[in-house]
């Protein structure tokens, strides 16, 4: 049976790793390549890397960072931020990314999503939708949460599915970095209305939050940043990731990936 994917999200600013609260007050956390290496040792299901200022600076993510992360890891990872053309997607995939994330460009460049899905296959293209609640109504924001679009997230999700998105990453800006749990209403609105997989993001602070999203909203994957980067009330930077046993407290056994760390080849892997 297909397992739940528990995905750390790393926010990049060029070569730096940062974490925000409600998409604001970025705090420098460290080096993304080191972080990716540590997450690789934790045997994470997948990693998502998003350069949060790339769109504003009108550039793609740093290709060299992607190359180094690919060299340091043997897990699937997805890269996004400022992607506006097919060539950039090709460069990122060539650098070792498995999939790419489109966000602002889905709204601004009409045929990019369709063309990229045709070229690289649907499973390569994740569409990310950042949502804020304004006067009780959900609204899509682009440019790293800075620009209001007036779009309804469900409309955009359906359009993305029709144009070739392989997966939707739905993020609640209001919950980002708060550790208060996912916005299940928002997530469910999307999962109920698309047939492609959906990744929930924004607000997870415990394994229970992950399981609640998985079992109550029908997402295929649960992503989080702060929960895996900070430890304790003072938010000390410390990378953690739930063990198989910790997941099994809240998830059914058939939904938890069996990690296989006890093989002799382990030694070889740790040499990475």
């Amino acid at each position: 049976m297909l397992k739940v994917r528990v995905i750390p999200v790393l926010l990049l600013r060029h070569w730096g790793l940062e974490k925000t609260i409600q998409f604001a007050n970025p705090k420098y956390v460290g080096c993304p390549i080191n972080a990716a290496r540590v997450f690789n040792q934790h045997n994470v299901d997948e990693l998502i890397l998003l350069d949060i200022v790339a769109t504003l600076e009108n550039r793609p993510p740093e290709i060299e960072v992607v190359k180094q992360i690919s060299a340091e890891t043997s897990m699937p990872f997805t890269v996004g931020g400022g992607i506006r053309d097919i060539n950039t997607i090709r460069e990122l995939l060539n650098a070792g990314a498995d999939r790419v994330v489109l966000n602002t460009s889905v709204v601004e460049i009409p045929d990019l999503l369709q063309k990229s899905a045709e070229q690289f296959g649907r499973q390569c293209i994740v569409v990310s939708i950042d949502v804020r609640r304004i006067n009780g109504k959900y609204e899509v924001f682009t440019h790293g949460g800075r620009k209001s679009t007036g779009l309804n997230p469900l409309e955009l999700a359906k359009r993305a599915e029709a144009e070739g998105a392989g997966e939707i990453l739905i993020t609640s800006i209001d919950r980002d970095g708060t550790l208060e749990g996912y916005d299940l209403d928002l997530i469910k609105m999307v999962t109920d209305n698309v047939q492609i997989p959906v990744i929930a993001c924004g607000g997870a602070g415990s394994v229970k939050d992950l399981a609640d999203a998985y079992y109550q909203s029908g997402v295929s994957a649960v992503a989080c940043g702060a929960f895996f980067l900070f430890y304790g009330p003072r938010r000390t930077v410390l990378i953690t990731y739930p063990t198989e046993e910790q997941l099994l407290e809240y998830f059914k056994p058939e939904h938890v990936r069996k990690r296989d760390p006890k093989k002799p080849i382990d030694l070889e892997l740790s040499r990475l």
Partner: protein
Amino acid sequence: MVLMIMENTQNKKIKIAIIDYSAGNIHSVYKAFAKKGVSIEIVNKETELDVFDAIVLPGVGACGSAMDFLTKVGLTRRLNYYVLELKKPVLGICLGFQIMTEFSEEGKVKGLGWIPVNVCHIRNVVKSPIRVPHIGWNDVRVYREGMSLLSGMIENPNFYFAHSYFVPFKEIDGNLGITEYGTSFISLYQSKNIYGTQFHPEKSYIGGAVLIQNFLNEVLNAKS
């Protein structure tokens, strides 16, 4: 530990070709084999293949364009000779596995025809409401004993998948690995010198590294 060092020394004797359909990322597959210490050549034009101990067909792009590419550069004929006449080992990964079949619905193209099955879109086979593409980690269950690619692993190991097309289960010769997603499909294939995986061993941590070493052990056996 000692065993591993011996394995790695042995690997140095192996020379493999990774076929590049010019569709993009073969970086991960290259890296996974490079780590094993084998010597690797990227092949993207008509080349004498006999010198290689094994060939890897990686999993990037779409079936139609990959087959067009192989035919256009004259590699289809070379590959057929290598696999069917010389009977040397070949490993197809994801799309590379799919093009070894008879026919793919993706682009409606004839494959290399080495495995007597067809590739279908998941939605055309599974009528229950599942999400497509199939992305993530799933179990691989051995259908017939004697699957050397999985030797040394836990029972029903998990591997990483990312695909919209698959090979629905069909009773065929060879050792099969089966995965469930709305229905049973063939996720691992091993028959004589032909090996295929629907999942990505190069993205599946230790399990994937073990599988690749198991394949290299088969290559060494075939060589001696």
